[in-house]
Each structure stands twice: as C-alpha cells, then as structure tokens.
C-alpha cells in the first residue's frame, strides 16, 4: 500500500526558478498587490 509518506518522498521539488520567484522582492511585491486585490474582490462578491 502506498502511504502518504511514500507519496511525499516521491513528490516533485520546486525548481530553482520557482524558489527564486517565491522570494524575489520585485515579483513578490507584484504578487502581494494581486493577492490583496483578489481577496478583496472575493470578499466583496461573496455575500
């Protein structure tokens, strides 16, 4: 039986580009603005 731990052990790791994207200040600043906008829109539209 495949356990969750087996699946974790075989899971793909993020590549160098993805790791760089997650911590790049310029990219993350843009994502920060986008995430705030997305959350605001979701909250306003949901009730």
């Amino acid at each position, binding site marked *: 039986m495949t356990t*969750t731990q087996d*699946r*974790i052990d075989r*899971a793909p790791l993020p590549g160098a580009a993805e790791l760089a994207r997650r911590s790049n200040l310029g990219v993350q600043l843009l994502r*920060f603005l986008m*995430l*705030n906008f997305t959350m605001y829109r*979701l909250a306003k*539209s949901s009730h």
Partner: protein
Amino acid sequence: MARVVVLGAGVSGHTAALYLKKRLGRDHEVIVVSPGSKWNWIPSNIWVGVGKMGADKVVFPLAPIYRRKRIEFHQAKAVALYPDGDAHNPRGQVEIVYTDPTRVGTTERLGYDYLINATGPQLNFAATPGLGPDAGNTVSVCTPSHAVGAAKRLAEVITTLKAGIPQTLVVGVGHGTCTCEGAAFEYAFNVEQELQGAGVRDKAEVIYLTNEHELGDFGVGGMTFNSGGARVTSEAWMESLFRERRMKAITQAAVTRIDPGVINYTQIDGTENTQKFDFAMLLPPFRGVGLKAFDRTGAEITDTIFAPSGFMRVDADYTAKPFDEWTAEDWPKTYQNPTYANMFGVGIAFAPPHAISRPYATPGGLAVAPAPPRTGMPSGAMGKVVAMTIADMILKGALAPTHHASMGEMAAACIASTGTGLRRGTAAAMSMSPIVPDNARYPDTNGRDPRTTTGEIGLAAHWVKRVLHTMFLYKAKAYPFWYLIPE
C-alpha cells in the same frame, strides 16, 4: 425599542454586534454576552505559539470598544435559552452567569427580541484521554494562553536539541473528527522554521498527524486549482511542500489516547499505532458550548433547537443521506433557526448539515472524518448578513431574512503561514469558490470555479497574512471606517 442579544464576541458575534449597532443607532439596544473580556485574532495564535509574537498582540479588551460604540457588554456565560419566555413574560430570555470578576457567579436573565448565537466552540479536549494542556501531555494554540504555553515548551525542546539530543515533534489534530486542520498545518510549518532558525533542524523529526484522508484536504475536500499556470491538486501541492521542508506526515488517523510521550492512534484500515514524541501540539475536536433550552412551562426543548453536537439548528437540510447525495443546497443561507424566527446561529455555533470532506470510518466504526471549517472569512460574512437581516426586520418590518451567505455560494481565501519574517516569511495562499463544492454548477472542476480557485506559495502570501492581522484588528477595534474592510 428593540433589543438584540449577541451571545459570543468572536469573529462572527463581534462582527454582527458592530454592524447591528451601525444600522440600528441609538434607537435600539445591542447587547453582547461573552465569557471572556478580550477579543482574540485567533489566526495569529500560531505565531504566539512559536514565540514570534506576544500574546498581547493578538488580543484587546472588549469593554472599551463596546463602551465607545454604545453596545452593552456583559462578561458572562450564556447557559440557557427561554425562547418563549416564562410563565410571567412571553418575551424570549437568555440566562447568563457572570464571569466578570466583580460579580462572578451571579445569574441573570436578559430579555431579547432577537438573538444571535455566536458562542463558538467548546474545546473538547476531554474527547481524547490525555489530550491538551490540562491533561499535561500535549500543548495547544487554541487560545493565547495555550499558545504561550506551547512557545515555552517549544523553547525547552530547542534547548534540548542544542544539547545534541534528538527530538520528535508532532503537530496535528487530536481526534478523528477534528476541524481546523489548516491551523495545525500552519503551526507545523512555523515550528519547522523555528527549528531551522535555531540551527537544530537536523536533529529534529517533525511529523504532521492528521485525520485528513490526504494532505491538502483541510476539511473542505481538497482543491484543484490554478498554480503557476497549471492545474494541480492541493494534495500534490502539499506533498511537494512537505518534501521540500523535510516534514513527515501521517494521514487518515484518529487519535484515541495520549500517554506521556506516546500518541495512540487508529488508521482507517483499523491498524492501531503509536507515535513517540517529545513535543506535541494536537488540536481538540469542537462541540457546542452546552446551551440548554426550555419552553414556558420549564420543559426542556434543547433537542428542538440544538443538534446532538450542541450546535444550533438553522435553515440547513439536516436529512441524513449518503455522501454522494450531498449538495451545496443542503447548506444554510440565512442562519435562521427553523423553530424560532427571531433566533440565528452563526460561525462555528451553527450546526452544519454534514461534513464537506468524504467521511471515513475504521472497520470498528471509529470516525476518521474531518468536520467542516466555519471560521475566518465565512464566519465574519455570516455575522454581517445576520446583522443586516435583523436590522431590516427591526427597521423595515421584514418578515423573512433579507440577506444570505451560504457556504455553498461563498468564496473563501485562506493564507496558511509556513514561516514568519519580513524577508524569510512564506505562506501558502489559497482561495476557493465556493467553500462547499457545487458539483451541479461546476461538474468538471470538482465543484469549484476554476477561475477563482487558486493557490500560490511565497513571501507575498506571508505579507498578506501579516497585513490581515493588522487590518482585522483595526476593524475589530471599530476604528474610523472599519466597515470598509470586508470580512
């Protein structure tokens, strides 16, 4: 003059009280009854629990806010409802017992025209023998004081690790029917980051122990979302994150007993296992706070108003049916009690019609079934729509609820912290719409709108979570234009 009594001052009750007073003004009374004197921004308790934030940063006293907003505040615990009044007075009443130190133990009955039950959960540590800070075997981050205790214990474990002694840290849920797996997930990753920061990660084993059927379920049946332009399941997403952070995971587990240093759990195939630990933070299951209800003659009608779990029945479809027949339509829209139209149940206090994730059980019948989360964003939305409905009933004479916010329609965003710090912080930002999958509306995408069901990991998500901390404290303190900040 109408009187609205709000039981509970958490996210849902406090939101309802503020909106009610804003709509009703000075012509009507809004009364809040809460056993605690302080408001707690619970999502940030995880940072208190790793020692990165003081407990004073996640709480503030309620009384000054309510005094400023002209909301009457009783620091007391509600114990019984009399929705038909008593033999002398047909007006609904709620019996409260003061926890306020100046009159602790004093009992009083408050009459009401409308009542909102936002009492939240009772932390049911007793459901699992040995679970929780009082039993002494595991810690918790459910309250600020629990989180302070968790941080202290974590610091001791780090000191032991620095002495070169390997330690096993287990974070997760302490019962087969727990909810709030997201909070346990967050705490696990923040603990892992603390260990990294202390330079002792290599000596520590960090294990996430959960009742979820697979990682990324979070009690909402998991998600399939857009991430970096590709469609990915939350399960695959989380497995990658666990591998990246060298975390282990045990899923499909119902914890049955905690002995000193040993967790006993059963998995859905019936196997009974043990896991040794040096540090364990396991969340408890929730149940209703134990409110009783009586009719005018004094006969108990608790079962009419509350589900067996102790949560209040509202306008949900409680018909028992198999998982494959569950629909988004089963979920409540107005949170009005079906027996008493002037009573509403919101936040964790309302009885859900069923779970969201597929429930499982061991061959012996032990439930391994995450309960549905009803916290945060949807909780605030419920508080607001019920406040608006009651205001319309009072001010406009509305006979039926005028506002709705079904979890089968509402979207929710979840920012799950996986580490803190302005530059080294990281979090998983997930949004889903709707919270309860609607397979009739979105048959090809697991019941959710693919345009608004998304996920990403990064520093930006941590910044968002930190901003939310500041914004929601601002809103909860009812500072100028607080109502412009959405729930």
